[in-house]
């Protein structure tokens, strides 16, 4: 029981769970902000897996994985910033912070639940 709580195994499984949770959120939620949050959750899930790997065994945590996680976080932050900027711009343009279906159909039937 104890070993199962050891960070080497707990974090990877926790990370995987977070990844799946984030994916589910991405599917269910329609509001863009919530979708960006879901993506961040998935990101943090991946970073937890990395940290879990770094903390395996009782040796001091492996520095490479930590470096990678830091870089990953930096990338995630910049991507989220960009996404938020786009959402704000979209909200200013369309009044909704929701993805309207693309210009595929000829006429503009922007049906609300058709996001």
């Amino acid at each position, binding site marked *: 029981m104890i070993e199962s709580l050891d960070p080497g195994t707990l974090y990877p499984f926790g990370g995987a769970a977070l990844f799946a949770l984030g*994916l589910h959120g*991405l*599917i*269910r939620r*329609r509001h863009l902000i919530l*979708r960006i949050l879901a993506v961040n959750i998935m990101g943090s899930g991946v970073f937890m897996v990395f940290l879990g790997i770094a903390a395996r065994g009782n040796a001091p945590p492996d520095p490479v994985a930590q470096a990678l996680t830091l870089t990953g976080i930096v990338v995630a932050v910049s991507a989220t910033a960009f996404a938020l900027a786009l959402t704000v711009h979209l909200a200013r343009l369309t009044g909704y912070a929701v*993805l309207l*279906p*693309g210009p*595929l*159909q000829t006429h503009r039937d922007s049906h609300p639940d*058709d*996001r």
Partner: protein
Amino acid sequence: MNAFILLGVPLLPLLLAAALSLRPGRAPLRLVPWAALPALLLAALGPEGKQASLPWLLTGVELGLDPIGRVFLALTAGLWLAAGVHALHERGEDPARRRFFVFFLLSMAGNLGLVLAQDAASFYLFFSLMSLSAWGLVVHKRTAEAWMAARLYLVLSVLGEVALFAGLMLAIHQAGGETTLAAIAAARPEGGAMVLLVLGLGIKAGMLGLHFWLPLAHPAAPIPASAVLSGAMIKAGLLGWMRLLPLDAAGHAVLGEVLVGLGLAAAFLGALAGLLQARPKTILAYSSISQMGLMTTGVGLALLLPAMREPLLFAVALYALHHGLAKGALFLAVDIAGRLPHSPAHRYVVLGLIVLPGLSLAGLPFTSGALAKDLLKAPLTTDSTGPVYTLLTLAAIGTTLLVLRFLWRLRRDLAPAAAPVPTGRWLPWALIAAMSLVLPAMAALTALAAPGVPLPGLADLSLLWPILAGLVLGALGGVMLREWMAHRLPEGDVAVLANTLIHATQGLYARVSPLREIRLHPRLRARLRRAQRVARHDLEWAERHMTRWGRLAVLFGLSLLGLYAAMALMP
């Protein structure tokens, strides 16, 4: 050098025809008949067996002049010359005379070339040139009757040509690729080749069963054209037989019997059908069919009695010469009859010259007919061909009756000439009519000069009694059977059947056309278009449906699982 002389004979009329059609203005019409002069000179003076091979022309053309060829050349050249001069005047004021003379020259070239041709390709070339351009002569007057006759003539001559082509192909194959006529004949064409050759040439020779275009074509064509058609052109079929059929030492019993049978049947039936005709030119047409029957019998006999083939073939050739000239004279006579001279003395001479070729046909002693019939019957003394001998003499009765019928029908058209008849119109006719006497005289002179040649029995009894019997029957027939003679046999007898056949096929073809190009049924095409529209709409809906973000993420999840499953779980 001689190659170009021989080639020149058929080439001259061709060049003249080209000149005529290209420069309509200055009509070199005067020269038209004289295009046949070199051929006549060649026939008279040309040295024996002159071979001229032109490898570069077509598939290697061989031209040459053998004894039989010489006789046919003399006949063809002489008749075309006479008919040409006559046509100059007869067609004098016809507006479309230029077109008539172009076709006239083309047929002449074909006919002359045909006689000289020694190889299959050139024989077929000249044969089809003659056949097709003769169509132009038949249709010249462009009356309804002329169109109908010409169409039948064209259908039959095209069939004849294709049959001849196929026959030549088979024969050449059997001769191992050799294309000269001599080699083909030597290789004795068998089975399909022989049948096709006989039929192909038979159509042109007016063989029984394939003869029905003749009685329609002759009355439709202008007089000089039908003179040449009947006198020289149908002889081409006969010459073709003599060149291609296996007339060598072995002969061919079966073919011989068939030809003799067909020949005699044609002789009698032709005469009978001729009697029931009204127009003089149709009667002469049937007389040609009957006379060609006799010549076919001659060829048949040459096949049956290979020992006697040289004299028989020479006899057939001479018979063809005699018949050609006599028939040509009779055809021209139809025109002359309408333009008799005023002074009684001249009129009697003209009437005499009209009657002379007819009697010569019947075989009157001291005429070319007697000479030809005697030569034809001389080799038949042996008993094996007994019945043929008697039948030949009986045929003379038929011919006499036919000639009397012709003269009787011609009597109604006799009329004094309205305008003075130019010499060019009556002279050629008079010359070839006189040949009926000149020929036997020449034959007698050559017999006296050269001891080897036997004196021709010009006054044989067997020639005389058929004519007398014919005269008696004619007189009786004229009195008693007037009403029987009244009802007419439709001209060309079997032709009526052939025409209906042609109409039927055209009608059938137009109505029943299973082979229409596959066109989609309009209803089917409409349904197809609607299906397209529906598909277009569904595609757009499906695409928009997939674009919804939620579904995309689900699809992503599914594809991740699918990939993992494919890699991990499957074998």
